[in-house]
C-alpha cells in the first residue's frame, strides 16, 4: 500500500506535472519556488520536530549556502553540483556558531538564532570585496546541462528541486524511524527521561541542527544558481524563514508530508489566487488562514486530512456490514 502510494507520487511528480505544466513558465516558476520553500520547511520541521527547537533563523543557513555556492563557482570555478554540496556543508559549518544557543530552549533559542541570521546578513554586506556587498553578485553560473538537457530551464530546475526535496524527505523519514528519531522525539517532553537511559541529548540536538542547516544550505545554493543573482537583502531576508515556518505549521510540522504539502498549498494559493484578487497585501489572507488552522486543527492540515479520511474509510468499511445485518 505504501509502495503503491509512493509510486503514484513519483509518477505525479516526474510524469504528470512536467507533462501537463511544461510550457507554462509562470506556473512552473511558482512550483519551483514553492518546492524551494518546501525544502526549507522540511529542514525547519526536522529541527523543530526531531530537535525540539523552534528556529527563526533559517534564512542564515539559506543565505550562507547560496553565497558559498555562488562564490565557489564564480571565484574558484568549482562545478555547480559540487559547489551546491559545498554550500550545504558551509551552512552546516556556519551552524556551529549556534551551538552555544542549544543550551537555550523555546523562545530564547528562537530569538538567539534570529539574531544570528542578522549577523550573517551584516557580514555579507560588509565583506564587499568577497561578496559584492549590498550590490550583490551578478551572473552566477546557471544549473548545468546534463546529457544535453539544460537543467537551468524551468522544467530542469523543477526536476532538480523535486529530487532534492524527495531525498531530504527520505533522509528525514529514515532518521525519524530510527532509534535516534525515537530518542529525539522523546526528548521534547523530558530531556532527563532520555539522558537517564544514556542518550547524549545535546549531541543529538547538535546533529539535527547541522543536518537542518546543511539541507537549508543546499536549497539556498540551488536557488542561487536558479536565479543567477544574489544580494544580502534577498539571500538573508526573513521571508526565507517565515514562509517555511508558516507552511510547515499550516501543513503539520510534526508529520513528514505536512511541511511539503503546506508549502505547495500556501505558496501556490497565495501566488496564483490571492495575489490576483488582492494585489497588495495578499499575505494578510495567509495569516488569517494560518490563524484558522491553528484554532481548528493545531496539528495542521495533513493530520486533519488524515483524521477525515480515516473516518471516511472507517465509515466505508462499516457500511456494507450494516447493510448485511439489515
Amino acid at each position, binding site marked *: 500500500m505504501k509502495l503503491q502510494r509512493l509510486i503514484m507520487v513519483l509518477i505525479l511528480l516526474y510524469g504528470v506535472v512536467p507533462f501537463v505544466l511544461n510550457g507554462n513558465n509562470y506556473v512552473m516558476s511558482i512550483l519551483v519556488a514553492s518546492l524551494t520553500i518546501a525544502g526549507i520547511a522540511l529542514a525547519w520541521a526536522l529541527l523543530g520536530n526531531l530537535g525540539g527547537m523552534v528556529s527563526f533563523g533559517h534564512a542564515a543557513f539559506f543565505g550562507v549556502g547560496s553565497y558559498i555556492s555562488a562564490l565557489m563557482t564564480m571565484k574558484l570555478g568549482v562545478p555547480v553540483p559540487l559547489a551546491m554540496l559545498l554550500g550545504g556543508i558551509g551552512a552546516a559549518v556556519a551552524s556551529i556558531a549556534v551551538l552555544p544557543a542549544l543550551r537555550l530552549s523555546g523562545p530564547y533559542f528562537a530569538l538567539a538564532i534570529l539574531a544570528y541570521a542578522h549577523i550573517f546578513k551584516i557580514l555579507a554586506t560588509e565583506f564587499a570585496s568577497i561578496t559584492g556587498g549590498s550590490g550583490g553578485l551578478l551572473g552566477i553560473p546557471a544549473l548545468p546541462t546534463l546529457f544535453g538537457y539544460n537543467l537551468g530551464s524551468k522544467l530542469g530546475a523543477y526536476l532538480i528541486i523535486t529530487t532534492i526535496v524527495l531525498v531530504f524527505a527520505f533522509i528525514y523519514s529514515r532518521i525519524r524511524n530510527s*532509534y535516534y528519531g*525515537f530518542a529525539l522525539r522523546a526528548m521534547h517532553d523530558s530531556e*532527563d*527521561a532520555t*539522558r*537517564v*537511559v*544514556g*542518550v*547524549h541529548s545535546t549531541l543529538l540536538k547538535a546533529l539535527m541542527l547541522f543536518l537542518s542547516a546543511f539541507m537549508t544550505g543546499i536549497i539556498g545554493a540551488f536557488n542561487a544558481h536558479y536565479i543567477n543573482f544574489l544580494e544580502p537583502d534577498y539571500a538573508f531576508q526573513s521571508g526565507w524563514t517565515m514562509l517555511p515556518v508558516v507552511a510547515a505549521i499550516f501543513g503539520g510540522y510534526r508529520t513528514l508530508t505536512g511541511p511539503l504539502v503546506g508549502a505547495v498549498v500556501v505558496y501556490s494559493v497565495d501566488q496564483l489566487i490571492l495575489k490576483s484578487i488582492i494585489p497588495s497585501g495578499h499575505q494578510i489572507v495567509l495569516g488569517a488562514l494560518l490563524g484558522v488552522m491553528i484554532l481548528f486543527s493545531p496539528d495542521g492540515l495533513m493530520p486533519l486530512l488524515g483524521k477525515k479520511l480515516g473516518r471516511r474509510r472507517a465509515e466505508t468499511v462499516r457500511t456494507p456490514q450494516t447493510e448485511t445485518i439489515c
Partner: protein
Amino acid sequence: MLKLDAITVQFGGLTALKGVSLAIGAEEVVGLVGPNGAGKTTLFNVISGLARPSGGEVFFNRDNVLKAPMYKRARMGIGRTFQIPQPMHELTVRQNLLVAQRFGTGKVNLEKIEEILTFLHLEGKADRDAAQDLSLSELKALEVGKALATDPQLLLLDEVLAGLETASKRAFMKTLTELHQKYRISILIIEHDIETISSLCRRVCVLNYGQLIADGTPQEVFSNPEVIKSYTGGGA
C-alpha cells in the same frame, strides 16, 4: 561499587546535603528514608548526574564519576527511576525499552526486551502508547523497565511504590525482590513506608535535614532515638 565521599549540595543559601558519605556494595539492597525535604532525591540526583554537588566526590566501581554527565553514568551502569514517572512520549512501551537499551548499552537485544516486558507484566501493553495508555503501577513498572534495559549494576529507585494501592504495592514489592534475585544488581531505594523498607532491605540509611543520621539494619535504625525524633517532628 558506589562510594559517596562528603557530598554537599547547596541551592543558594539552602544546604540540601551536608557532608554525606555512603558506600554501597555489590548486590546490596539499601533503603534510603527520611522526612520530606531531607535530601533523598537530591542524593539520587547527585549519584545519577542530574545535580552537581558543591563539595565531595562520587566513585562508581572505583572511578571518580563526579564530572561524568548523566548519560555517561547511565552507560557506566547507574540506572534510576523518577518519583514522577517520565515515560518517553510519542513512543510505545516497547520502544521506550528499546531506546533505553540501544543508548544505555550500545546494542539491541530483542530477547532481553521481551524478557523485561514479561518480568514486569507489561507484555500486554507493549505496543500501547507509554504516556497515555498506562495505569500508575504500569508507569512505575515502565520506569523500572527502562532502567533495567540499560543493564545497570546499580539501580536507584525513587519512591517507586508511592501512590500505589495496597494490592499493587504488594505485587510490586514481590517483583522488586524477584528483580534483585534474578538480575543480581545493587539497589538503593527511597521509600517512606517503614514496613515496606524493612521487608525489602537488610540495610537502611536515614537522611534528615541533608545529613546522614543513621545507617544500619532496619531494627537498629528504626529504634534509633534520633531517627524517631526526626520522624516525629524534632529537627536535627
